[in-house]
């Protein structure tokens, strides 16, 4: 069994005292003792429990809703439907990292005239007890006019297929729209060079079609939302979210409140992976609270999570690539059709831009289509769009290498994107670790080892993801004992209190244990974007750095005041010693951080540092994964024997949590590769809406996952940080596909590559 390589390979981190070490996370004790308060753990005096009635149909017109019997049930305090909400404006709101149409946001929270997927919310109930609220749901009478559902992305694109939205027209990137209404919400295209010329130059051309299923983020904590609409018209919301400010900025316009009337407190969050950026329950809880005058807590059960919260897109993809005999890739053509779910907004744009990004291919043509279908509205899921698109392109690249007889890593190196190259989308690369990851993979013990035994195979794949920057805030005060409470707006989803506090500690030259990070509500810290997009350690860390520099400057000024000298003559050293000019007797004057902290109160008052940063230089992320599998040819089952994940982290602030992101991404990617799928019947009923039948990997399904951290510092960050969270979900599926092909000679064309699919492609193949 492989064991973890626990230290980063680069020597870069030796220049730091705190960065690169592995302290115990600040919120750790609370999380191993059960004391940490997650959203569903909240219990307020007088609180009511809510439940949501959901559509049994995938596509239907709502003829009538009668809530009177439910309202009459003893213990029921309020029942609401879409009609109880203020009419949503046809306006765009900021939903985290993008925008969304407010009317569609409201319709997804609670259906108006039509239900567009099984599980679409129709009504919500608040009662004295959740058992009663559940009973009340059975008393709500809804009359539907059932419509034909559209469940397949290619079917949905055909003229004459049932339309989800009569007003939806295909929008091109240039702003033009189609004459006829369509389920295709948008189309985009990127080109580079001359694609036909590129194929003409090729000695070998391979074209493959792929289909992938919707897959869910699968966080273990279901969604929840608690609201208390106070008599003074202000609204308190407590919820498990990746972005408290996004919840505020979604809830306020839906209820026609000012952001200043809404305070959102982010509770501890039990996983998100992108799926806890949209609002689902919070607006319902708020309106129920307004109606009842009491706090209302809404929670989803697992079935609701799978039915009605954002999975990632199912897709149809077609890729054609050509290469010369020497391995030079001359052309790449990519066609991506992504299911958006019930409302526009699949991650096809990002998928399109990622699809060929790791390679400098002179001739490219990439088309992407965003298509609505009668399935839940997709949400972001770890490197949204990239796992699908790069599954297709990496798979074809692996087949090209196989056909040409090239080592797949050598062929990648020959074509790798490097600094100065520009993608088909017109994005130039700065300093990136693409080649460094490939090289580290080549040098890894795994790649150097021999794989023996029947039905075993090895595969490799590359992954790329942009990473994003955006706005983060930090406040910190200096206490008299030299400890520093640090106030953050970023939900801590996987150790970011620690990774941000460590950057503050590094900058101040103090121990990370002396920094006490706290995640606070939207009234208590400056605007902070979502914990997502691999941005939190990057942007939060930058805010902490600037916050610490602010403190350093103020401490220099304070020392100067105490020493009665010019502040320009005082310097805060990286060793946390504040040095001034020699006194009249020629004695050196200096304060340690703690000494000066102890004098603040009596020398003019305390010091507060603050920063609000809005950075763009997030630094792209690359990863190279190697996997060994064994396939049981009689059952089609694939076992993962060995796994190595190489990734450029820029600088690994807390290497253990960087490794954890890599290993967790691999686990999700392997799940997507082998077993995770949304299984619908023809009526649009999701047949596997449970954690029994939506098969995420268990501890018994994975080996140890060996992480190799590469550090190519991001020049756009004071400590060289690149985001690490998302890219590790990208390479697993194509790497596993290549390993299966290497083991049994069959190239799969769908995800998941389940035992059923593998049997269908092998012993049960009737073609």
């Amino acid at each position, binding site marked *: 069994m492989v064991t973890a390589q626990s230290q980063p390979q680069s020597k870069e981190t030796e220049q730091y005292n705190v960065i690169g070490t592995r302290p115990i996370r600040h919120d750790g004790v609370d999380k191993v003792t059960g004391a940490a308060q997650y959203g569903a753990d909240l219990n307020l005096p007088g609180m009511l429990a809510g439940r949501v009635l959901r559509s049994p149909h995938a596509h239907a017109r709502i003829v009538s809703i009668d809530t009177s019997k439910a309202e009459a049930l003893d213990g029921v305090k309020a029942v609401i439907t879409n009609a109880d909400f203020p009419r949503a404006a046809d306006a765009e709101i900021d939903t985290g990292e993008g925008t969304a149409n407010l009317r569609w946001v409201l319709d997804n929270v609670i259906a108006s005239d039509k239900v567009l997927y099984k599980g679409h919310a129709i009504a919500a109930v608040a009662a004295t007890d959740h*058992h009663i609220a*559940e*009973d009340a749901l059975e008393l709500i009478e809804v009359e539907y006019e059932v419509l034909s559902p559209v469940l397949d992305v290619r079917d949905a694109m055909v003229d004459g297929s049932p339309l989800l939205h009569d007003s939806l027209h295909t929008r091109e990137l240039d702003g033009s729209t189609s004459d006829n209404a369509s389920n295709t919400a948008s189309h985009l295209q990127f080109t580079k060079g001359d694609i036909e010329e590129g194929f003409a130059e090729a000695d070998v051309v391979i074209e493959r079609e792929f289909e992938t299923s919707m897959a869910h983020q699968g966080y273990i904590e279901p969604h929840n939302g608690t609201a208390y609409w106070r008599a003074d018209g202000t609204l308190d919301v407590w919820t498990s979210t990746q972005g408290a400010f996004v919840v505020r900025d979604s809830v306020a316009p839906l209820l026609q409140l000012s952001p200043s009337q809404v305070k959102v407190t982010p509770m501890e969050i039990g996983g998100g992976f992108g799926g806890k950026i949209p609002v689902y329950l919070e607006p319902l809880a708020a309106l129920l609270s307004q109606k009842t005058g009491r706090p209302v807590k809404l929670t989803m059960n697992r*079935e609701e999570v799978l039915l009605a919260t954002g999975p990632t897109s199912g897709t149809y993809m077609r890729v054609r690539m050509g290469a010369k005999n020497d391995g030079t890739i001359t052309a790449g053509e990519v066609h991506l059709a992504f299911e958006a779910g019930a409302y526009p907004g699949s991650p096809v744009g990002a998928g399109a831009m990622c699809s060929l990004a790791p390679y400098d291919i002179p001739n490219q043509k990439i088309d992407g289509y965003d298509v609505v279908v009668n399935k839940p509205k997709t949400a972001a899921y770890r490197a949204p769009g990239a796992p699908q698109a790069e599954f297709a392109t990496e798979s074809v690249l692996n087949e090209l290498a196989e056909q040409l007889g090239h080592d797949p890593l050598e062929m990648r190196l020959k074509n790798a994107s490097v600094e100065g190259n520009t993608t088909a989308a017109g994005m130039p690369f700065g300093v990136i670790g693409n080649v460094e990851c490939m090289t580290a993979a080549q040098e890894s013990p795994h790649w150097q080892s021999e794989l023996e035994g029947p039905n075993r195979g090895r595969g490799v794949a590359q992954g790329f993801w942009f990473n994003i920057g955006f706005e983060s805030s930090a406040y910190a005060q200096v206490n008299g004992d030299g400890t520093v409470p640090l106030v953050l707006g970023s939900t801590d989803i996987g150790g970011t209190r620690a990774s941000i506090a460590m950057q503050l500690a590094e900058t101040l030259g103090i121990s990370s244990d002396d920094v006490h990070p706290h995640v606070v509500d939207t009234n208590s810290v400056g605007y902070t974007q979502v914990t997502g997009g691999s941005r939190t350690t990057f942007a939060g860390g930058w805010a902490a750095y600037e916050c610490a520099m602010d403190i350093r400057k103020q401490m220099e000024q304070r020392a100067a005041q105490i020493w009665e000298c010019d502040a320009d003559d005082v310097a805060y050293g990286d060793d946390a010693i504040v040095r001034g000019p020699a006194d009249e007797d020629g004695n050196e004057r200096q304060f340690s951080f703690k000494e000066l902290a102890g004098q603040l109160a009596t020398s003019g008052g305390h010091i507060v540092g603050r920063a609000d940063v809005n950075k763009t230089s997030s630094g792209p992320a690359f990863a190279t994964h190697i996997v060994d599998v064994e396939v049981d040819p*009689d*059952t*089609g*089952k694939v*076992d993962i024997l060995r796994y190595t994940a190489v990734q450029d982290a820029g600088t690994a602030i807390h290497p253990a949590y960087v490794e954890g992101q890599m290993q967790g991404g691999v686990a999700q990617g392997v799940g997507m590769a*082998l*077993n995770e799928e949304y*299984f619908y019947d023809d009526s649009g009923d999701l*047949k*596997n809406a449970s954690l*029994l*039948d939506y*098969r995420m*990997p*268990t501890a*018994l*399904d994975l080996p140890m996952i060996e992480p190799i951290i590469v550090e190519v510092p991001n020049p756009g960050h004071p400590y060289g940080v690149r985001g690490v969270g998302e890219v590790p979900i990208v390479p697993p599926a194509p790497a596993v596909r290549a390993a299966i092909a290497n083991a049994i000679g069959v190239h799969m064309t769908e995800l998941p590559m*389940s*035992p*059923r699919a593998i*049997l*269908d492609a092998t*012993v*049960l193949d009737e073609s």
Partner: protein
Amino acid sequence: MQAVKYARAESVAEAVRLLQEGGDGARPLAGGTDVIVQARERTRDIDLFVDIKHIPEVVDIRHGADGSLTIGAATPCYQIYGDATIAERFPILVDSTSLIGGTAIQGRASLGGNLCNSSPAADGIPSLIVLEAQVEIAGPNGRRTVAVEDFCTAPGRNVLGSGEFVVSLSFPAPAAGSGARFLRFIPRNEMDIAVTNAATQIRLNGDGSVAWARVAIGAVAPTPLLVSEAADALVGQPLSEDSIAAAASASRAAANPIDDMRGSVRQRVHLAGVLTERTIRHAAERAA
């Protein structure tokens, strides 16, 4: 959760009385790993749980002097696979009970519950069938015994009448030279419902020929199936590639599965053959 009451029975007679009084909405509660979910998700009308776990004979393991075995219907899986004598004489029961659910499920789930839930894919039932288990049922008219292969009648349905519940399962002593094995196929390595499962018990003569055999397959029909044609293909001759292939073919012929999210018809039929073959080989190894 439906409005369901909880009652604890201290004796078989009390359980029968509570179940009878409770009518159609009353259900025995053993490990609860299926029935609590059904009540919560309102997939079955239940308004009373009669907890039978405090009745001694329903939760114990008794080894007869003749090598026979009786297991109380509500005895949790972990006690069954943790019993050294069962592990030695009835290892196929360890096969089944150690892969029902995860560790926490095995702390509660029971073979009796698995049987009474009467799922076509139950991982306990094929093993019970090839071991020729007898089901002891208590009810308003006293006790009766049913052969386990006759117990299930349809998905989720069985021969239990009003006021009846399963007290225990009895197994004859395994004959010398016999061995048995249960296998299932699932996409993950744990925590799944069988796509298909199979069990074989086989008895070998001194000359290596098959004296007796019993093969059962699950998740390929409305109830777990005893496939006598598969056994017939083995008995009276030494085990050979041909006889094993014939038995596997018999299982494929007997399989009449459905397409659902857990498996396709073609996949299940194919797996019925694969698992029949594998359980025969493993059972023979245990017999030797």
